[in-house]
């Protein structure tokens, strides 16, 4: 690890700063020319993605770096650091955000608060990029709180009574979670005198067990709110249907995952795997995650609202990641980390499809979807492929994560959790395949057919909405097919897991 000589040259810094600049720029949204403003704002996520790609290349080539921007307090810096896990997460965020931005241009075309949407969306992107590259717990918390709190504005965006209620619920959960995090962070800092992320954790062997327990539980519970761990998942199912579709995609794709990413950092670089094993918190966490994975999938089956069903699916999928992280071995951790990326692509696409159907056909419920594939062939093809990937059909992205996760579980001597993995996959089939069946084989309702323009090629949706869906589907396929190639997401995840969990 090298300290960068000139921090202004760090791509990590610019990947965070550009979205912030775009957020400031979109304050002037109404005064910018109509076409120019999309190019101008769109530059931020795309450039962030490019910087993230440069960082990934660097990490794969074995270089990593750290910059200290400013000393906030004695022994506490605002610092950025690029490691394999962060590079992978950062790239996933920026790429997904680029597609989401394009989609939002079409989705918000007639929205009079589009400027406000883009301001807060760019702030969230800056926060997430900061989370990916945060070099210590304080920097992590700073960016984490930034996107968590700014998300409120995007959930409440549509201003309906359900959006207002969902946003209120969200902010209560998130504020409470944030308080737990600061308490846990202060406790860990008080015990160790360091806020930096360090391999093996910062808590020394002489730490009193009660302190270690307190810090671990507070930090894991704090991130667990965002990661939607049972019983802290209450906000997820309300926030997703209420938010505008591009933001639902971001929320499910990378924001909930940021919570699991936080748990990974806490487990391996703050509290340390050794302490977790000594205190048996790893076993408790695994049990909670396993329960969440199965029970959320069961609940998803009963949901008629499409976005709500997908939201419960997210709760279930995120629990896999927590489960993989809690087993304290490189194998399952690899599966967990690569699943963050794969899930972002699959679930992002599914939510964009749901958003497209809602905006162009007014369809929000599964029961309204009868025969909709004839009217929206490309959308439903993308939906089907992403759904199959999520269930775990080879050779798509979801299969890769589950294969690696499952293999890692056997390797780590935790084969019992394979039941959870297979059960979850079976349940995913039960809640996703009926959607596909209804869309292709169901009977269309009379009134809907009357209100919709007849299907013609090119009449399905605006290109700005269709293109991201197609692109994400292609990425989902690629993440599966090319998983074992050099420089794939999987190879990066393996590298990350080795450095996080291998050094125990």
């Amino acid at each position: 690890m090298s300290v960068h000589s000139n921090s202004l040259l760090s791509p990590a810094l610019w990947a965070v700063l550009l979205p912030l600049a775009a957020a400031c720029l979109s304050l002037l949204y109404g005064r910018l020319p109509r076409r120019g403003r999309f190019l101008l704002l769109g530059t931020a996520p795309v450039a962030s993605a490019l910087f993230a790609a440069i960082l990934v290349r660097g990490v794969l080539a074995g270089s990593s770096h750290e910059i200290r921007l400013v000393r906030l307090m004695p022994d506490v810096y605002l610092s950025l650091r690029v490691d394999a896990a962060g590079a992978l997460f950062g790239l996933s965020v920026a790429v997904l955000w680029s597609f989401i931005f394009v989609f939002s241009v079409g989705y918000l075309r007639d929205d009079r608060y589009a400027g406000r949407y883009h301001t807060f969306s760019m702030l969230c992107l800056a926060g997430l990029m900061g989370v990916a590259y945060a070099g210590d717990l304080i920097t992590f918390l700073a960016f984490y709180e930034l996107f968590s709190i700014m998300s409120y504005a995007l959930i409440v965006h549509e201003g309906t009574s359900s959006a207002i209620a969902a946003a209120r619920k969200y902010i209560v959960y998130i504020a409470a979670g944030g308080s737990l995090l600061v308490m846990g962070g202060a406790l860990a800092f008080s015990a160790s005198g360091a806020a930096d992320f360090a391999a093996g954790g910062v808590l020394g062997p002489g730490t009193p067990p009660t302190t270690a327990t307190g810090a671990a539980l507070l930090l894991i519970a704090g991130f667990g709110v965002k990661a939607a761990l049972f019983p802290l998942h209450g906000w997820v199912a309300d926030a997703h249907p209420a938010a505008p579709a591009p933001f639902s995609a971001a929320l499910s794709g990378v924001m909930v995952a940021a919570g699991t990413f936080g748990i990974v950092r806490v487990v391996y670089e703050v509290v340390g795997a050794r302490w977790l094993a000594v205190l048996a918190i790893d076993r408790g966490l695994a049990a909670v995650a396993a329960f969440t994975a199965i029970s959320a999938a069961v609940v998803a089956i009963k949901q008629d609202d499409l976005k709500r069903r997908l939201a419960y699916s997210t709760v279930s999928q995120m629990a896999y990641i927590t489960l993989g992280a809690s087993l304290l071995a490189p194998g399952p951790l690899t599966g967990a980390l690569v699943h963050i990326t794969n899930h972002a692509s699959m679930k992002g696409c599914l939510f964009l499809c749901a958003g497209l159907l809602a905006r162009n056909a007014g369809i929000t419920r599964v029961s309204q979807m009868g025969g909709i594939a004839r009217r929206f062939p490309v959308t439903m093809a993308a939906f089907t492929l992403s759904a199959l990937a999520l269930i775990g059909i080879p050779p798509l992205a979801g299969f890769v994560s589950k294969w690696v996760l499952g293999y890692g579980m056997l390797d780590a001597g935790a084969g019992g959790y394979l039941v959870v993995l297979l059960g979850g996959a079976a349940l995913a089939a039960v809640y996703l395949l009926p959607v596909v069946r209804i869309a292709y084989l169901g009977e269309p309702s009379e009134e809907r057919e009357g209100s919709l323009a007849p299907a013609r090629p090119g009449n399905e949706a605006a290109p700005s909405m269709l293109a991201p869906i197609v692109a994400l589907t292609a990425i989902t396929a690629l993440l599966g097919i090319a998983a074992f190639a050099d420089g794939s997401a999987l190879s990066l995840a393996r590298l990350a897991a080795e450095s996080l969990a291998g050094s125990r």
Partner: protein
Amino acid sequence: MPVEVWDIRPALAPMVSFVCALLVFIGGSRAGWRRFWSMSAALLKFIIVASMLPGTVGGVAYTFRFAEFAPGIGIGFRADALGMAFATVSSLLWVVATVYSIGYMKGERSLGRFFGFFALCVSATVALALAENLLTLFIFYEVLTISAYPLVVHDETPEALRAGRTYFTYTLTGGGVILLGIAMTYVVSDGVLAFGHNGIVPPDTTPAVLAILFVMLTLGFGVKAAIMPLHGWLPRAMVAPTPVSALLHAVAVVKAGAFGVVRTVHDVFGVELLRQTWLPDALAYLAAFTIIAASVMALLQDNLKRRLAYSTVSQLSYVLLGIALLNPWAAVAAVVHIANQAVQKVTMFFAAGAIQRTTGKTNISEMSGIGRRMPATMGAFGVAALGFTGMPLLAGFISKWHMSVGGFDSGMWWVALVMAASALLNAAYWFPMLYLAFFKPVSEEPTLGEARPSLLYPTLVCAVLVILLGLVSDLPGMPLSIARTAVAQAFGM
């Protein structure tokens, strides 16, 4: 211990605004002169105070003593780190508040009186911040009490006069108790009242005397620091014009009380002596109670300025709690919170005043869509609100983090819980307002109409300060670094 260097500046700084007050009283009927004197005095004073900062950082305490009337009794000034922390904030915010007041008070009557007493208040505040001994501190503390009265009753409405009476009843009683305490200290310490020795009460004082002395001084100063149940005057005094509420009731007057408690703990008793007694624990519990109870009261207020007042009551007790824990981390939180709370609260008061002057609205429930009408003003308000909820990289987080770490360090877990509860309560009473202002659907879209520049720019400057105090507060000369110097001296580190 800092090196004492003889220098006129600690006496000169309060003198500048005292002269300004005189000039305004004499020639203040003309608006042009009034503005000129107020602005130039504010700037000059800030420059004088700031010019002492490098010395403070370098471990120098500039000292200036006038002749003593009797052994140990005299007027003296000494710019140690703790005093400089308070003086810097007051004099900086005075510059901003002067610009704001000129804009806000335009067209009001009795402006000569207003700006004269305004300057006098700040003169007294800096004087008591830089006081070298307990008596000097007390004299200027009382000057501040008296010269704030004409500002509280400025509107001369029956409500304002009633509030002024309440204010006097509380603060003069508190002042009397402090004076008794000082007399007792003088007897106990055998004629020593000067600060700078980490305690002037001798260690062999009997516990009963210690207890009586501690209660008298902390509760006497606690009146202005609005510790519950002595807070009654503060919400009522909010009838004053908004710049007065901002500068005096969020910075000078209330902070003078909190500052008095800090001096009492660090310089009258000393950390070492108090550690052997139960007294600081009692103060800590009372402060913790105030933090929570006042926040709950704030939740119940609809009038924006009253909500701000109860929030001030709650935030002031951060200072008292931090100082009572007798832990270096918590003590840093206490001292740095003097600056952090001041900047955040002034931002909010300025925004509230800008809204009142621009739209005539004073109740939160009327403020739907105000953020779409005045986005910059409410944006500044939002930054301060997030600061109070302890969002990292904003001022409030620095205080909250230090306090929580201090609590854990001294084995008191409940401190972090109080901090968390307070942050959540702050979110509970500020976030709904941001929702109303920015996100609540309104039937008629408000047209853009910001406050006039003299109200808007001071508000924005303060919001930028909130961010700077969260981001670069550790740079030499910034509040966190001064606070750490002050605490290192008090704890003999």
